[in-house]
């Protein structure tokens, strides 16, 4: 179609050219028609060659270059986007792993703490029961001792009194009378010595 237009154009030019009469005027060389035809001829020639070479050879190449660059950039952007998504997924996985291991560690910690506490409690309980037993036995012994103490004291007191009297007076005194006195005294002073 473009060729047809060019041919029609050229035909119209030559039709116009026949009507161009010499319109030479003084001042402006532009209006001197001497070289008009030459200028038209060379313009058509140079511009025609320029147009043909540009449109057939050079412009498609530049357009192709631009297109190729555009597609390559798009491709690169796509790959970058893909890699970004991949890395995001990886990061999420990584975070999940860390969270899981944190939970695990916490569980381990709790478990071992519980175990230790249980162990400790058990040991303490056994220890406490042992101690209680010991305390009980000791208390019983003390009570026994306490209960037996006045009798023994009385006995010792009677024997001591007996010996003392024997040494002082040089004669035997009836045991039963001494023990009666001692018992009487100990009864009187019971609260004083034992706090009972």
């Amino acid at each position, binding site marked *: 179609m473009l060729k047809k237009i060019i041919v029609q154009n050229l035909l119209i030019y030559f039709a116009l050219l026949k009507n161009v009469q010499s319109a030479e005027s003084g001042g402006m060389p532009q209006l001197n028609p001497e070289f008009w035809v030459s200028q038209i001829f*060379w313009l058509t020639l140079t511009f025609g060659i320029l147009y043909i070479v540009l449109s057939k050879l050079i412009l498609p190449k530049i357009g192709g270059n631009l297109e190729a660059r555009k597609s390559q950039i798009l491709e690169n952007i796509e790959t970058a986007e893909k890699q970004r998504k991949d890395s995001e997924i990886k990061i999420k996985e990584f975070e999940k792993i860390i969270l899981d291991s944190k939970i695990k560690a916490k569980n381990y910690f709790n478990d071992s703490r519980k175990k230790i506490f249980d162990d400790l409690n058990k040991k303490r309980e056994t220890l406490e029961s042992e101690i209680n037993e010991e305390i009980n036995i000791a208390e019983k012994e003390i009570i026994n001792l306490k209960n037996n103490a006045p009798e023994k004291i009385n006995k010792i007191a009677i024997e001591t009194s007996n010996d003392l009297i024997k040494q002082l007076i040089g004669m035997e005194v009836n045991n039963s009378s001494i023990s009666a006195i001692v018992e009487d005294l100990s009864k009187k002073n019971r609260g004083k010595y034992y706090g009972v």
Partner: protein
Amino acid sequence: MYQFNVNRIGPEIKLGEIDISFTNASLFMVISSVAILIIFNLGSKKNSLIPNKIQLLAELSYSFVSKMISDTAGSKAKPYFAFIFSLFMFVLFCNMFGMIPYSFTVTSHIIVTFVLAAFIFVGVTIIGFIKHGFGYLKLFVPSGVPMILLPLIVVIEIISYLSRPISLSVRLFANMMAGHTMMKVFGGFVVSLGIIGGWLPLSFSVALTGLEILVAFLQAYVFAILTCIYLNDALNLHH
């Protein structure tokens, strides 16, 4: 006005009765085209992921023009991308080579810009008629206009449509010629005022050079974008 003179380089070449001699204008057309081809060939040779400077230049120009076309004429204009790209680059390089002292500005000649504009005009009209048949004439009848005003509007629209190639070509030609003439005038002032008074026009000349480089780019851009707009009218009939 010497800088706008067209001089024959080498022998006279005749094609029948027609004189198609190689001139300085032809030389700069060839230089511009060859420069474009060299730059863009180098820029498209190697396809590295991180472009080097010249590849970056070529690719930036490519996407700049491609964006310009898709913004103004939509996706339907894609088959005409190569043409508009060539047009933009050709006009830009011709303008820029014209900024080199003692060079020749191809686009400062009305015949060159008019041929380009007329080619665009005829091409766009043909595309419009091919795409829409006689429905393309609806371009001259804007919707939502009261019936009383319609005859007037249609006449105005037709005149504005027919004046497109003239406005397009004269805009580029006049801008380039006016800029170069102004530089010439200020350059003349520098010479005539001499070493004492010449500094002021010289500084103007320097500033104008910057402005002209801007204009050189801007006019190439305007030329290309107006082509896109005309193409848009032909491809997507809005009225």
